[in-house]
């Protein structure tokens, strides 16, 4: 193929790739053409050709920038948000609260944080979803980069009467771990009194127009939970979000073998595991009501040990997971 024909072919390919939306492939072809033109001294209109190609590459680069700078998860219309919710709240076994919670979580996953926060706020009214909704509201605020908003929301809850102390403690542990993961150093108040104390300190600072070290937000060290204390916190009614668990079999032919399972979901103290059919042997150790000793619980914060009470064992009979088992275990930390 002569050189002119080769260049023409490359330019045509570049145009076609561009029309297909394949920007990088188009640029590659234009670059190949440029190289070929530059190498060939005898080519007529060489400079004009190179300038023309350079303009085309500029246009492509602008298109690429537009695409890359476009918001990754923009707010979409209410109709589409409703569809997103519907997509995820479809399990017939779920109650209304759980469905609504799943729908709101889906909205958050698709970056529809404002609507998600509004839906989670509605779910604060239900006992069954209150704590999960609160955790997700904090998550949404954090995702919107309004850490201050999240903290002020948390402090407002401490002052309100929506949550009981047990719930507040759960939210506290969750929020502290969320802030730690984001690298935010902030000592959170744990009780209403501590929030009041901070407010009084701030107001008296303002009255006296004095500059003081805002190191610990007026909290005493003993009142905060350090990372080392998380384990003992988890030992009370509060259970951290568990990602996976390790179980040591203590009897039968599998004695001593450690199995690790991912947690599918968690509701308070109860974690739900999916046990593949290939691990059928281990199912025999799970009798409803029986206690499993020596369980390792892996959370985002770290590992904590304890035992577990088997509350449900169900074989999945339909769907792609047919033959696998769903096992619910109540976390017990001594």
């Amino acid at each position, binding site marked *: 193929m002569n050189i002119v024909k080769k260049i023409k072919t490359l330019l045509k390919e570049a145009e076609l790739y561009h029309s297909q939306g394949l920007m990088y492939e188009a640029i590659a072809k234009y670059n190949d053409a440029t190289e070929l033109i530059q190498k060939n001294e005898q080519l007529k209109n060489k400079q004009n050709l190179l300038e023309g190609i350079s303009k085309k590459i500029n246009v492509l680069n602008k298109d690429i920038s537009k695409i890359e700078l476009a918001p990754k998860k923009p707010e979409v219309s209410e*109709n589409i948000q409703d569809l997103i919710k519907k997509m995820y709240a479809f399990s017939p076994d779920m109650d209304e609260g759980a469905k609504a919670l799943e729908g709101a979580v889906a909205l958050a*996953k698709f970056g529809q944080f404002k609507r998600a926060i509004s839906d989670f706020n509605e779910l604060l009214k239900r006992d069954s979803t209150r704590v999960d909704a609160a955790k997700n509201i904090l998550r949404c605020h954090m995702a919107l980069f309004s850490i201050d908003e999240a903290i002020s929301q948390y402090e407002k809850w401490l002052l309100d009467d929506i949550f009981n102390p047990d719930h507040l403690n759960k939210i506290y542990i969750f929020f502290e771990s969320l802030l730690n993961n984001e690298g935010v150093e902030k000592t959170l108040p744990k009780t209403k009194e501590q929030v009041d104390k901070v407010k009084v300190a701030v107001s008296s600072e303002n009255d006296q127009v004095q500059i003081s070290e805002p190191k610990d937000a007026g909290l005493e060290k003993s009142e905060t939970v350090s990372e080392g204390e998380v384990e003992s916190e988890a030992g009370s009614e509060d259970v951290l979000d568990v990602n996976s668990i390790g179980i040591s079999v203590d009897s039968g032919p599998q004695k001593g073998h450690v199995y690790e399972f991912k947690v599918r979901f968690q509701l308070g103290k109860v974690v739900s595991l999916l046990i593949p059919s290939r691990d059928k042997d281990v199912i025999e150790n799970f009798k409803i009501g029986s206690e499993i000793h020596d369980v390792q619980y892996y959370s985002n914060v770290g590992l904590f040990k304890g035992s577990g009470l088997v509350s449900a064992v169900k074989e999945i009979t339909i769907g*792609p997971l047919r033959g696998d088992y769903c096992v619910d275990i109540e976390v017990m930390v001594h």
Partner: protein
Amino acid sequence: MAILNLKKRQIECKIVYYGPGRCGKTTNMEHIYKSYKKQVTGEMISIDTEGDRTLFFDFLPMGLGEIKGFDVRVQVYTVPGQVQYRSTRKCVLKGVDGVIFVADSLAVRREKNMLSLKDLQHNLKEYGINIFKIPLVMQHNKRDLAGEGLPIMAVEQMERDLNRQLKVPSFPASAISGQGVGATLKECLKLTLISLKREMKLGQ
């Protein structure tokens, strides 16, 4: 997983078009929307961004009529193909019953096809679904571009690259003209319904 409503005698299942960015998933769906009006039961919803790239998903509701006294409804989705939307693709795959993998026949997209298929396998696995077990159909799209002078891969090569182990039904197609689009969807629906029927029998 398909939703079975015994009270309303309804089966609702979910088909997802998967594949690399710009391979023609939305074009497939647009053709279905235009050409299968009888089966389409609502509006097609597209959420796209700059450069007509699918942002979250496209959605098309369809009805297949009655099968053994059950009203069969199908929700067809596409995923965003661009690499950076991995988490969205995973979200859209939740509860999937059947998958159509749209591969791009352009030779320059060979690697993207393979990466996307691996991504599909990985995302299915996260939901506990085995790619070898789920109803899956492959489409070799953009066959028409050979006529435009662009280098495209031979079907045999694409089969070797993508379907050597899976051995699923595959169709050459040109979504822009509609060729092969209906055949691909019909095959996927057939496999999905067979699979659902088998599951329902076993579940009884």
